[in-house]
């Protein structure tokens, strides 16, 4: 654990006695991690956290580096949904980043995957038109079951 992180955890323990500590810490870290850029579409906003570096690298090798930024896939396309998701994820990521309480390798969560899936459909409406009417929402199959490397080259 590096020094910076250690001090934030200590800070957290101090703040822990008062309510709103979670949010407080989230916002604090958020600032530290150049949180303002989080609200832009610039992929650099994500790589402010080194933990996103792998995904940035693999995105840069993917077919979508020229067609979609991180947010193009990872946040809903409607305005409200977009900022709601960003807020939730912003806090989740800040929390994780600060405390180190997360599992590696990172694995996309179901709600995030739903967001991504919706975005594939948003951009590629026409392509799956023919095959999709048969889709049942319960299907465990996603676009990335087959297109395993879209977004992030492996």
């Amino acid at each position, binding site marked *: 654990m590096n020094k910076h992180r250690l001090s934030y955890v200590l800070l957290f323990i101090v703040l822990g006695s008062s309510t709103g500590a979670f949010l407080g810490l989230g916002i604090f870290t958020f600032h530290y991690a150049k949180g303002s850029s989080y609200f832009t579409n610039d992929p650099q906003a994500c790589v402010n956290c080194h933990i996103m570096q792998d995904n940035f690298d693999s995105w840069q090798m993917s077919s979508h580096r020229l067609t979609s930024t991180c947010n193009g896939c990872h946040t*809903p396309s409607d305005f409200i*949904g977009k900022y709601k998701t960003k807020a939730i994820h912003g806090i989740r990521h800040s929390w994780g980043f600060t405390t180190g309480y997360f599992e590696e390798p990172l694995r996309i969560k179901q*709600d995030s995957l*739903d*967001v991504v*899936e*919706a975005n594939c*459909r948003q951009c590629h*409406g*026409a*392509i*799956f*038109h*023919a*095959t*999709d*009417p*048969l*889709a*049942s*929402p*319960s*299907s*465990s*199959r996603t676009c990335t*079951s*087959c*297109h*395993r*490397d879209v977004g992030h*080259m*492996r």
Partner: protein
Amino acid sequence: LVNIMEKRNEARHTYLTIAPIDDDEENPAEWGKNFPLQYEGYRKTVDQVRTRFGGSEAIARTPSQVDPRSVVAQSKLEEDPRLKDLWAGYAFSRDFREERGHAHMLIDQIYTERQQAVQQPGTCIHCHASTYVPMKKLGEGDLQKGFEIINKMPYQEARTHVQHPVTCIDCHEPKTLSLRVTRPAFMEGIRAFKATLGEPNYDVNAKASRQEMRSYVCAQCHVEYYFKGPEKRLTYPWAKGIKADQILAYYDELGHKDWERKLSGAPVLKAQHPEFELWSQGVHARSGVACADCHMPYTRSGAMKISDHHIQSPLLNINRACLTCHKSTEKDMQERVAIIQNNHFEMRNLAMDAVLALIKDIERVKESASPERLMKARDYQRKAQFLLDFAEAENSSGFHAPQEAARIMLKAVDYSRQGQNSLHDH
């Protein structure tokens, strides 16, 4: 989450059908008016192209009175005459060819010399024609009843009730185009199998997920089967499980035999195309990869993507069939498959030699050996031969589950050679 679900549902539209189709429409050309792209692919199943172990070769022949076909697939008996020996006394030793595309299924069944070797039952038609509408008609609306009736007919009568090779209505519900199972034998078989997994009364059309259906529609036919009892009821031997040794145990318990091998006199079994059973044991099945993913991969047509209804060897279409999931090259995938299939072929050859060596030994001592000893050796033959046949009859040459196929063949070798030893004094 709710939002996304809603959006998904909104995104689902039903098809715009130009000519509405009803549940008695057998003719693919009629369906094709609505779905010309799928129909076009479907018709391409007449094509014949060979791969190292699959596809099929178009062999010209002179049409005759009894068999009007001018093109057939290569004979497997000629490619490997040991098969003739293995199946001595059974119709398969007369004629056994490489299988080819769906368009040929009906004529290939009608004109195989196996029809001349013995009077075949109506049961045969189940997997070689569009039977959904005919069965419903025969059963007066009751599919199950129609199934019982057709099983009991002689083949020559059954065949007058069918018109087409497998067609749209055998896999699709005509209103929504969703997949459905139309074969009573599969409904029963999968029910028996699911019961062994602790899920009784399984109703496939109600319970299977869409992804499962993408394999189940194929598993209606690409499976091991036998004719049960005097009614020659089509049955899938899955009540103890679908692994080769579980199927063998089922047959043993039942005391079923397909025929008695000429000369050696063993009560033997013939395995047929257990693609579904072997695939089920492989890593693709475990990872949720369905038959249709490889054999009917999506293909682009203009701005749209459709399922390729030209069902064929994926090796003829590696780019779409494999490379979407495997970011590799065509050449590399070809080689991966070649390694697996060549290893498989080496083992299959060793196992076949072993079974035939046992058969020869039994034949030689048939008159001199004690009845107990003979019985024991014949049982070894039965087991060994079935297991070898299972791996051999499976049409992917081991690809669908390489280690499992090898395991089965190892047991076949072991039984054969033990059988030989059992004939000697120690």
